[in-house]
Structure formats: structure tokens, C-alpha cells
């Protein structure tokens, strides 16, 4: 099934057509996704645990290989099983935000952001620190930060690499309700700042309704429904 997730007059940038067998708590199942994501779109992958949301995100980042299929971004082929093309994560230029944020414990907040830059640029680091309200924390190490602060650093770091695509794996799942509400705005801010596609994994309906332009409902590896959040959820 090929889905159009936005208006036909918009340019499709990310094309995903993959299959991968997965082992879930309910046994073996096949993740089968066939979709196209338009530019500037914030797409949410929604579903229960084991639906294949994180697996799909990891496949897009190049951290997992599909069994077969095809992925391209803006015409550049990232993965093609038929032609044996498989770009490593280093060459895909995606900003990936992990569930545990994966901040480097040996680096300060500022150094975490600098490390992500392809070319050192202190002004851009200052600007990101200011954008996410992290100026006062720039010399702190991740171990001293709260969950919300870590989330903002992880977002700033993901953006510092100027990625083509932002992939957010349940970025708010570890936070309490009030913190989640505040940080949803930070995600929207990051998405606008990037001016490209963002794929967000979530199993929180409220979060999806607030953030997503489009939602893809996954169940046992299969896309059940997709479209505007108000129509799908």
C-alpha cells in the first residue's frame, strides 16, 4: 500500500518501502511500511509497544537493516536491497534523539553540542544554547541535569549537526505530565528551526494531536491508518 500523507501539490522528500521481520512479545511479525513523507512535515508514528515504531526509526537512521526494500531521501538512495546500497548512519545526516537522550557523560552541555557540528562554529552553539534556554547550563555535565534539561540538550545537539531529517524516539516518555507539556513546545520549535521533516515516535494521543501534521498508526508492523491526527485518532 502506498500512502500519500499530504497534498498532491507538495514535493515528496522521504520515500520508505521496507520489510523487516521482528520478534515481539506476541511472536514473530513482519514490519511492512510503504510511505512517503513530504517536506516540512512533522509525522508521528503512533502505536502500542512492539508495533514497530522504534524499529522503523532505527532503520531510517541506518542503525538497523531492513530485510529488503528501498529508502531514499530527496532523490539520494539510502538503502536499496536490489542494488545492494546501504548508506551507514554517518552518511545519512539524520538527527536522532534517543529515548535515553544518549548525551555523552564525559562532555559538558556545550561540548555535546559542539561535538555534533561538522564545522566548529561557536556562534551557532551560542545561538542553540539560547534558543533552548541552556546558556546557564552550558558548563554542566549531563549527570547533573534533570530529564527536561537533558531533552533540550539532546534536541539542540541533534540540530547542531544540521540534519536532513529529525528522528525523535519517544522523546518525552521519561518525563512527568507538566514537563511533557512544556517540552512539546520545544519539539515544535526544533522542527521549525530545522525546516525539514521530523518523524516522532509516540504512544500518547494528546502529544500526537498537539504536535503532528500527519499520523501513521502502526499495529504489529503494519500501517493500519494514516492521515491528519483528528481523522486517525
Amino acid at each position: 500500500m502506498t500512502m500519500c500523507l499530504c497534498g498532491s501539490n507538495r514535493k515528496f522528500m522521504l520515500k520508505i518501502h521496507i520489510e523487516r521481520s521482528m520478534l515481539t512479545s506476541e511472536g514473530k511479525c513482519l514490519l511492512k511500511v510503504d510511505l512517503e513523507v513530504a517536506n516540512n512535515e512533522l509525522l508521528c508514528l503512533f502505536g502500542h509497544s512492539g508495533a514497530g515504531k522504534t524499529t522503523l526509526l532505527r532503520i531510517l537512521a541506518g542503525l538497523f537493516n531492513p530485510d529488503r526494500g528501498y529508502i531514499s531521501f530527496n532523490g539520494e538512495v539510502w538503502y536499496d536491497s536490489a542494488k545492494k546500497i546501504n548508506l551507514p548512519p554517518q552518511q545519512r545526516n539524520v538527527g536522532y534523539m534517543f529515548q535515553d537522550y544518549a548525551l555523552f557523560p564525559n562532555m559538558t552541555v556545550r561540548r555535546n553540542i559542539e561535538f555534533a557540528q561538522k564545522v566548529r562554529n561557536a556562534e551557532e552553539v551560542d545561538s542553540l544554547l539560547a534558543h533552548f534556554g541552556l546558556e546557564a547550563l552550558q558548563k554542566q555535565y549531563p549527570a547533573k541535569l534533570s530529564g527536561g534539561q537533558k531533552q533540550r540538550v539532546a534536541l539542540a545537539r541533534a540540530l547542531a549537526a544540521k540534519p536532513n531529517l529529525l528522528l525523535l524516539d519517544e522523546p518525552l516518555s521519561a518525563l512527568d505530565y507538566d514537563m511533557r507539556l512544556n517540552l512539546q513546545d520545544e519539539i515544535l520549535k526544533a522542527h521549525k528551526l530545522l525546516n525539514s521533516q521530523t518523524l516522532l515516535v509516540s504512544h500518547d494521543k494528546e502529544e500526537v494531536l498537539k504536535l503532528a501534521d500527519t499520523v501513521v498508526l502502526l499495529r504489529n508492523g503494519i500501517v493500519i491508518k494514516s492521515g491528519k491526527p483528528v481523522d486517525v485518532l
Partner: protein
Amino acid sequence: MVNDSDFLNTLLLTGKLAGWTTAILFVIGLPIAYVLAYKRFWFKSLVEALISMPMVLPPTVLGFYMLVAYSPQHAFGGFFEKYFDVRLAFSFEGVLMASVVFSLPFMIQPLQNGLVAIPRSLREASYTLGKSEFTTFIKVLIPNMIPSIITALAMTFAHCIGEFGVVIMVGGNMPGETRVASIAIYDEVQALNYDVANQYSLVLFIISLLILTVIYSMNGKKKMLF
């Protein structure tokens, strides 16, 4: 009775052997530990078993095989004699080589455990930020496994200064060349020089205690890292 100069020389030789063994093993141990921690290959269990063999094998067994290999009639020993003009049997170089092999697990295992303990997401985050495996290793992994590195260095050094079986098999008891402290203790006891044996023993006891204290304090720090 042993004079002060002999006593000091023996201890210096012990330190030299342990220091060189630790330095060599650190350089070769880091890449081996990396491969064992993160790569999959079909004979990985065999490699891990071989590296761990010195922990279960009597030192005399390893020493015997190394002594055989060191013989100038053997291809290995002959190669070193022909191309490097080094006779491995009953020399410091031979003892050093045996010590490196015999101490492998004491370096590799803490390093491997340290790498495995680092959350996978840190490596993956670095890769998605465009960093190579080498850059990730140097700038992300190594700085986040310092307690494991200190443990590996300390364990290797401590194990080396206590080595007896392998050293006596391949090095014998040559003052200034292969006579390390553990062999000197045995030698002095055989000669009924208990006072001198006690001096050596006390030094080894204190050094070992200090090193183990460092290792246990590092274990506490490892738990705090992640």
C-alpha cells in the same frame, strides 16, 4: 645475605617487566577488547576462550610451550634469532613475551566489560552525528570507560608482579635479567634467608594491596557512571 643493590635491582626488574607488559597489553588490548565487545564472528567464543586460558591453565603448561617455541630450532624462536638477533629463552625479552601472553585476560576482560557497559545509544548517537567508529572510540567510548581502563591496567600490573610459574619456566633465575621478586622469594627461602624473603614479600604485599584498593575504588565509580 642479599645486598641493597641486589634487592633494589630485583624490584626494579620486577617493575620493568610489569610496566612493559602492562603498556604492551594496553596497546594491543584496546582493539581486541573493542572487537570482542561489539563485533560478531563465528569463532568469537574460541578467541574468548583462548584469551581466558591463562586464568585456568597451570603457568607451567604455558611456560613449557613457550620455551619449546623459543628454541632457535623452532620456527618462532629461529625467526627472532635470525632477524632480530634476540634469543628468547632465558632472556628478559622472552620473559616479557610470555608475560604478555599470560596476562592477556587481565587486560582484555576489564576493557571488554567496560565497553559492554557503555549504553549502545552513546555509540549510535555518535554515528548518527556523522562520527566514524574510530572517532567514536577515541572521543566517546574511551573517556567513558576510564574506571575500567584503570582496573585493567592495575589488574595486569598486579598480576605481573606476582608471576612465578611462567617466568621460572622461560626465564629461569638470572639476576638482572629474569630474576623477578617472586622468584627471588622462592630462591631466598630455599637458601633459608627468611629475612630477605620477608623483605621482598612485604614489598609485594603492600604494592598488591594498594593496587587492589585502587581497583575496588574504581568499581564504585563504574556504578556511578551510567
